[in-house]
């Protein structure tokens, strides 16, 4: 394994807590590993498992999901849904041969900038130890999956010779 390997981690953050925690860490000049690319969502409950699959298949080495502590969700209980999806997703990914350490769920309130920074640094080191995932070695193309019922009329004409 290359000693220069810098893991790419996609981090999904909640607008109301963990995104602000990351912001706080920045304002307070708390140092943490620069390997995580944060994406802000309105809630951890918005996290469609497809996002995780897309990240991993597109070249990420790990995915970090963050949200408000249980009982503190801005939308009452959506972080519980995130937790349930995370557990089922992790089991499925384990069957696919993706190490459990590559997917992590962290609760972080808006005040926990220092803790979130520590968790990120910890995860980066864990994923670094696991090595590159290299899932995108073969370019993945997924059809746009558009559909039209058979009655759909469109202006394409075929000619017959």
């Amino acid at each position, binding site marked *: 394994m290359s000693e220069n390997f810098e893991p790419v981690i996609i981090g999904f953050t909640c607008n109301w807590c963990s995104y602000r925690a990351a912001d706080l860490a920045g304002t307070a000049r708390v140092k943490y590993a620069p390997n995580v690319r944060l994406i802000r969502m309105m809630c951890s409950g918005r996290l*469609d*498992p*497809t996002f*995780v*699959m*897309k990240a*991993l*298949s597109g070249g990420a080495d790990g995915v970090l999901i963050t949200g408000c502590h*249980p009982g503190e969700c801005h939308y009452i*209980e959506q972080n*519980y*849904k995130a*937790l*349930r*999806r995370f*557990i*089922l*997703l992790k*089991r*499925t990914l384990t*069957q*696919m*041969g*993706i190490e459990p350490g590559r997917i992590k769920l962290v609760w972080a309130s808006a005040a926990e900038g220092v803790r979130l920074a520590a968790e990120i640094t910890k995860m980066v080191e864990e994923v670094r130890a696991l090595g590159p995932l290299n*899932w995108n*070695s*073969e370019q*993945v*193309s*997924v*059809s*746009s*999956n*558009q*559909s*039209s*019922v*058979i009655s*759909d*009329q*469109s*202006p*394409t*004409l*075929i000619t*017959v*010779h």
Partner: protein
Amino acid sequence: MSKPKFAMYWAASCGGCEIAVLNIHEKILDVDANFDVVFWPVAMDAKYKDVEAMDDESILLTLFNGGIRNDENEKMAKLMRRKSKILVSFGSCACEGCIPGLANFSNVDEIIDTAFHTLTTDNGSEFKLQTHYSVPEGEIHIPTLLPLLKTLDQVVKVDYYMPGCPPESHQIAAVIDLVIQVLQGKATLPSPGATIGVGNSTVCDECKRARNEKKIKYFTRIQLTHPDPALCLLEQGIPCNGPATRSGCGALCPAAGAQCIGCYGPAEGVMDYGSRLISSFASVIDGNTPEEIEKVIDGIADPAGQFYRFSLAGSLLRGSKTARS
């Protein structure tokens, strides 16, 4: 004017798609009346070289079923693409990989080992699979397996998708009717890349079972329980793939008392079939602590197999890490 040409080819598939086509009953006579069937290995004798000799795009309509498992499949996919004006990815294998695509959980060595050395077969340790073999008459070649089974559209451009394992015969009949109408100038084709012979919603939308707010306290297997025949199966803890599966079949399985297993592939707008199912199953689990949730999920014996039974090869990950190594 000579009749337009029709072809049907099978790659890694079971032959069920061909039966589904023949199952359109007397409408098959319309196919014969309107088309000149030039290549259809299961129904008539024609050689690959006959197809190679045809002009490019000289076949109007090709229904291509089966996944791309080996180099022969891949070569034929490219050949049929070149010779066809309209190439339809026909059936679940060609669209998402289907059951043959489940081999994407294993690598080629494991597949060969399972087929020739374990479980039902004892060939002895000296047996070795060879793709080339010399006989007095010359050298024999058999196709080589690709590392991963691919869907048709991962190999060539596809004009239309027609999912289903197999596609329902009434849907095939409707598609053939439409093509004939197009030939007669009475209709136009759907936009390129469209999924045809399907509905625009999910199996749940076609399912007659009663639905309430879901709170799943446990998952079980259908053979271990006696489900209420009028109530949503998922509500009764039976992993039913209806929420992520495209409509078009008329919810046949739930109507017959069995759970949907997802043969019609991802519903409209779903990029990764398994992810959509993970989302819909997990959201309705009745439990808020990791322990409670784990206990409910324990009831799903094989999550990856449950969520990707028909769509592993067409999923975002395409296969397991082992298969890709």
